[in-house]
């Protein structure tokens, strides 16, 4: 989950470790952007934030989007750009892990909002509510009024995964910015920068494996990069999949190809291979889905049918029957799609 303060706590905790035992800091924190310019992806929206930061008159904002795409980082950068030196005094951050019931909204947030702090002219205190969609509706109601009363001195910045979990009155008071998933190229660019800075040995296949496993989540990509680096010293495709502990997409891809040709024995052998490596049914089926939807050469109708069958199997596995039999049945059904119906008749 995107959470700056969790990370921050880690920093202080780990900073001690660095002193004491020489541990390494998570790269996610070490290279977390401080300037709005450094934020990867969502260029239009970030551009807008820069304008606001220059202007100084921030409205309340809600940033919504998937985890790991820079919501919290953007808010922090914005706060830094706005408050500069006074960041420490002028920002209150509350996280999902902090207590955020009605009482906190009434007392902590309100007393912060009432406090007078020396800030650069025309700037406001900022209250950051991370993962605001996990706040109870009652707390949000209480927040609504606080926002209104203290909007002269305090601005709210909310980060959430689903903006419709925020009650309507608050949505109405905020400018809503939607962050979209990071593009692969954007993640790649950042990963390459990190590799250079940390002197990570890598090859291109390794980086694309990182991108495949991360699915647009920058944080996960960087974490995996660091784990692979510290674990193996070299970022190659195989090492990444070992670290991420995911079935190898190449195997899965071969499996689907075999299904497409109706070679059920080959396909089953691949599934068995993955199963024998110890992957759970959920892991396997998730990877199968991911690979299937990314296969460009698969004709549309096959893709639809395959996704449907995979979906059914996934649902069954989620309901508790995570067995090899289910996976085998899935493979058989995938094969049947392309087989001529006449050959299936008894």
């Amino acid at each position, binding site marked *: 989950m995107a959470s700056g303060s969790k990370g*921050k706590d880690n920093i*202080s905790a780990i900073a001690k470790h660095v002193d004491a035992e020489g541990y390494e800091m998570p790269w996610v924190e070490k290279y977390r952007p401080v300037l709005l310019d450094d934020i990867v992806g969502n260029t*239009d929206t970030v551009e*807008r934030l820069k304008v*606001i930061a220059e*202007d100084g*008159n921030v*409205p*309340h904002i809600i940033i919504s989007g998937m985890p790991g795409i820079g919501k919290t980082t953007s808010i922090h950068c914005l706060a*830094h750009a706005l408050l500069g030196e*006074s960041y*420490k*005094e002028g*920002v*209150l*951050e509350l996280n999902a892990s902090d207590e955020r019931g*009605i009482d906190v909204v*009434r007392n902590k947030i309100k*007393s912060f909002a*009432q*406090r*007078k*702090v*020396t800030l*650069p*002219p*025309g*700037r*406001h205190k900022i209250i950051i509510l991370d993962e605001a969609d996990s706040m109870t*509706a009652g707390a*949000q109601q209480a927040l609504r*009024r606080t926002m209104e*009363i203290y909007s*002269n*001195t305090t601005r709210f910045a909310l980060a959430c995964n689903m903006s*419709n979990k925020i*009650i*309507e*009155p608050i*949505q109405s008071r905020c*400018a*809503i*910015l*939607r962050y979209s998933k990071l593009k692969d190229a954007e993640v790649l660019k950042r990963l390459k920068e990190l590799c250079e800075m940390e002197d990570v040995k890598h090859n291109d296949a390794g980086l694309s494996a990182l991108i495949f496993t991360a699915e647009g989540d920058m944080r996960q990509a960087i974490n995996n990069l660091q784990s692979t680096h510290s674990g193996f010293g070299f970022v190659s495709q195989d090492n990444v999949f070992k670290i991420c502990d995911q079935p190898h997409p190449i195997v899965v891809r071969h499996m689907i190809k075999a299904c497409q040709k109706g070679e059920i024995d080959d396909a089953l052998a691949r599934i068995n291979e993955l199963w024998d490596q110890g992957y759970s049914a959920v892991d396997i089926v998730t990877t199968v889905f991911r690979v299937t939807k990314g296969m*460009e*050469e*698969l*004709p*549309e*109708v096959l893709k*639809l049918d395959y*996704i*449907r069958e*995979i*979906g*059914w199997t996934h*649902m069954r596995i*989620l309901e508790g029957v995570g067995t090899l039999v289910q996976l085998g049945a899935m493979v058989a059904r995938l094969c049947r799609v*392309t087989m001529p*119906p006449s050959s299936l008749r008894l």
Partner: protein
Amino acid sequence: MTSKDTAQSTKTSKKSPSRRSGKNGINESKKKMSSLSSFQPMLNFTKPIVASTSAPARLDFSSKSTTKDEVDRKAMPPPLPGFLPKSRLSLSASTRQVKASSSDSGGPSSTVFHSVKTSSNSHSIKSKKVIEILDDDEDEINGKIPKARPSKISLIHAIWADRFVPSTAIELAPGKARIAKVKNWLSEALYGYPADVVLPPAGMSNQSKERIRKYKRILLLTGPAGAGKTTTIKVLARELGVELVEWGDSMDEYSVGLGTADSPDRESNATRITNFLLRDCFVPLDQNTSKPRILFMSSLPNLTHLPTREAFHSALATFCKTFTLDSCPLVIVHSEAGSGGRAEESWMDREGGGREGAVSVVGKEVLGSPYCQGIDFIPLAPTFITKALSRVLDQAIPDVKQRPPHSAVQLIALSANGDLRSAINSLQMLCGQTTRLTGNKRKRKNGDIGSGSSRTGRGSRGGKGARIDVSDDLRAVLDIVAKRENSLNLFHSLGKVFYNKRLSDPRIDEEDQEVVATVRALAVDDPLPSHLEQYQRSKSLVQMENFLPTISVDASTFTLWLHQSLPSFCTDIDQVAEAYDDLCRADMMRTDDDIWQSSPQAIAYALHIVVRGCLLALPSPVPRRNNQKVIKPQWFDAYRSERENSGQINLTWASLAKRAIKSSSIASDTSLHETWSESTAWGGIQTRSVLATETIPMMLKLEKLHNRPLLPPNAQNLSLPPYTTFIRTQSLDERDTNEETEEPSFKEEVMRNWEEDEEEEETSWLKDDEIEDWD
């Protein structure tokens, strides 16, 4: 970045240790008091610095020079904790709306002011404005000005929605009729006659005025967020010269209790409300009684908590009934979520807090009583919003050339979904952009912006936005600014599915070449086996991985829209059938009992299947016809009426159960127990469906026959199955003529049974009523 701002106590300590060291003792002692008042000493000492000097100048200011002000501040003892009488907070509500047209609110003056502030702290160059601000601060030191009161500095940097709040009723955005209604109610409640009568009607006695006032106790304003409810009340109150006493949901109540209650925290929320309603409706003795007061509640207590709700309802009921000449009316403002049935209506969390209907806000007793009147605000029409936005722009940016083009304003108005506040927010963000552009000497001419018409392939033709000419980059900016899950985006994504564009389309050259190029670059499809050849399609321009994240509504809602409008884009019934087959499969994939809480995986699969299935089933290319329209799903209306009906049925059920219990308890007292035992409890134990399909229709019919109310008034508009007409016409005839038929036909038999039932019930209710009267 590296440290989190947590403790309040570390707040200001860093700034000027030398100056603050002497006060530490005081501060320590204050901190031990309640958290709210603890920082007040600090606050009063740090504030003057904010206003008078800039950050860099402040450092040497504290070290080298001590002006007279400074000495004064040091010498002054910190004010008592909680030294904030409540009346000032209510004052803040009225003072907040400073006329925005005043000269010093404009952009240029603010920059001048900044430069003055940042240049130095020398007193010689201070403009008049700065001196004014210093005056304000002197007052604040003495604790006379409430904290919430905006000084001129903060007003310049206020959010536009606050800064350009209308000051007169003419400027209000909601419809005239609605405003007049509110105004009349206020006037009647305060003076006993409507506002449009200039002088009190000559023949009107004080008694009749009182009678009117007596029944104007509670005004309930409902409507979606941003429809102007609160603003209307505040502006009207000012015009009528009325003081608004605002309930703060325990926000401001802590500081009030100085001297009156030792521990206001101990007072429960419910008690505070009761006290607020019963205490504050009387004019305090020490105040000048010339100014009438209105109680105003915009934030309600936590109504999802049952005891709180009950306490609140009973407090309201008591409030209604206690009327004296001095008491003042109550206005409740309640934001309803999504009453407009819009696409982005968050029906997913329908039972969440803040989504209660009017009934649960004030309670059914109060709502049904004559004391309470509800006025529903509807989402503002785009024309109204455009008007209001233009007014804001006139005040915000005096220079016509710097304003964004009118088309942009219109687009914001359209995409705001009737929410003026969010429209103003969007406008403010947009204008940040324009000022920056001019600052960078990249000023665009207005004609330029308007002339770049949207491309043919862009947007959906059914979408409202397509009519307006906006250049592409301005549209891109607006896309970000006005991205409040807006309908333009929805239509955009629906259009992408419905028009099913593929590489083989004849008009492919008119599409966005970048997209076409990327699609062309994809790997070629593998050949299909012969039995699937009919599904051979060329590559779709809709690339799933990029498309799915751009859908601005949740998956279920998107499916609803597709389902409603898909057939008009097909040429063949088979295509519709195929697409709907996939919709069905997707529906089954989500967990069956409760699609709202299906797992995210299920939703992902379902969305893939829905979109891919529709794309595959639709003809390629989709022929364009006139009747192809994207229609709002009927589901929203059906869902709303279902909610309303079930609410009414619940109420009716409750009232029937109440009466049944009452009658049974009385019956058990009398000796009639045997005869009553079967009929007494029938209202209470029926299931809702029996109630809805049998009992209520029957009782409504009885009511019509006898003109005697049997059901609570809110049950009257329950939508009923239509069979009643048949029975009614028949029954009236037969009642008159065939009272004693020897050979009843089948129909008559049915009727007979009905009548018997009716009689039985009728008598039972008659007795019941009598008993109640005695009671």
